[in-house]
């Protein structure tokens, strides 16, 4: 669970003027239900996810986290091309204090990488890197999985596997999604919200959130 306590985030542009990306955000996210935040492009999706992940410090207010919060779903900077798949996984396990043997068994089974796991990431294809990255994310058993914009990666077979895994572990893992794609909300979330003009409004039902989002996200030609 992530609690935002009167959060504001501002950036200073080159002229020195301060612009607020979001302000007075005062809610808690993802305790048991998966939360989806809809925002039009450029309204602070990534900032919101980075704040939740702890990559960025809020300009005002405090953030409390309970349980293990993942890295953003499509983030791959933690995977080094010089190391083998096994070494990369070991590094992640060390950082998050997980049991390496269990995680390795899971990744070997889930990613279908086979003997490639012992080769340097340099020889992996792009699609195989996605498979390793996403299977290690699931192997860490996070309580909350952060998703920035989209959940793509891997071939069709692997994506199907991911969706199945998510369906099976719905009660163990909650999602915190910030996206501009309403389909993601209907597929994965129970609670929805709309972030626009620096204000976050939460709705009890996904349908209402999507309806509100569609009002905001209109591109008038």
């Amino acid at each position, binding site marked *: 669970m992530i609690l935002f306590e009167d959060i504001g985030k501002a950036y200073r542009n080159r002229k020195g003027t301060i612009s607020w990306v979001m302000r007075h955000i005062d*809610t808690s996210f993802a305790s048991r*239900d998966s939360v989806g935040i809809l925002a039009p492009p450029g309204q602070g999706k990534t900032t919101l996810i980075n704040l939740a992940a702890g990559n960025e410090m809020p300009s005002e207010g405090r953030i409390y986290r309970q349980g293990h919060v993942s890295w953003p779903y499509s983030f791959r*900077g933690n995977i*080094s091309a010089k190391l083998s798949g096994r070494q990369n996984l070991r590094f992640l396990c060390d950082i998050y*204090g997980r049991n390496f043997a269990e995680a390795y068994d899971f990744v070997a089974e889930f990613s279908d990488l086979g003997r490639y796991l012992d080769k340097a990431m340099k020889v992996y294809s792009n699609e195989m890197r996605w498979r390793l990255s996403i299977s290690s994310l699931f192997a860490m058993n996070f309580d909350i999985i952060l998703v920035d914009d989209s959940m793509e990666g891997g071939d069709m077979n692997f994506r199907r596997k991911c969706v199945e895994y998510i369906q099976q572990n719905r009660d163990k893992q909650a999602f915190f999604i910030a996206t501009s794609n309403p389909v993601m909300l209907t597929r994965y979330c129970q609670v929805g919200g709309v972030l626009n003009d620096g204000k976050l409004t939460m709705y009890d039902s996904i349908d209402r959130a999507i309806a509100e989002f569609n009002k905001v996200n209109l591109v008038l030609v």
Partner: protein
Amino acid sequence: MTSRAEFEARPAEMDVVWRGARMNTRVIVALIFREAAMRFGGNPFSYVWTFVEPGILVALLLFVRTYVQTATPAFGESSMVFLLTGVVVFRATRNIINKAGRAIINNRALFDFGVIKPLDTVIARTIVEFTIWLLVLTFFFAAVSRILGQEIITDFQGFVLALLLILYFCLSVAMLNATIGALVPFWSDVWKILNIPLMMTSGVLFVPAQMPPEMLSIIIWNPFLHCVEELRSNSYLDYISVGDPYYLLSFSTVTLLLALSVERLFRKEIINSREDGGEDDDL
């Protein structure tokens, strides 16, 4: 949605600090293993090269000393020991600083991760590089003492203390180089230029105590000189050392504090800095 009541049982302040410390230790240990795995890049020759390279250097200098200059060794019965304690220690110190000083720039991709902070990578890399050089030093000292049948380390406790002092010095200078180098790319060029005078005045090739006083009053400010002197004073019986451990200690502490404050003030800029691609670290 959840009620705020669930957060009533917030952990006490002390627990938060303890958990943070444990987390940070875990991150640094993980980074140490990662750095160690990445250091040699799976090439078996680079393991050998780490030991061969300083050997070649010492052999070359020894050759120049005995055949070209036709001079007696600067100090002690053997110029081998003199050069070893000088050249190898200076190069070790400088290489640790150079390698660890690039830790932030080389590991930039990791900082979008949240849990890893820039200075963690510097600490991890300093420890890895220091361990490697400790092995090299042990190898050389053991080899020389075996060949010459001479005791090199006279005061073991002092030797260990000197090594710890050098580790502290390397860590703080590497932190300063890493933070300022990430902020001001120009700094790495300044550091490269500084390298030559620093080596010349570090007492690698001469005995600092035999220098004229005017000269000594200038070179005494060079912290590398103190590193070399500290290690030498524990390896010779009647060596007159000008090294001052308190100078090294205070220099390192001031540097460390400066580096920490620079990191805290400009953390965002440091994380977002771009790599300039300079790869040459050896003179």
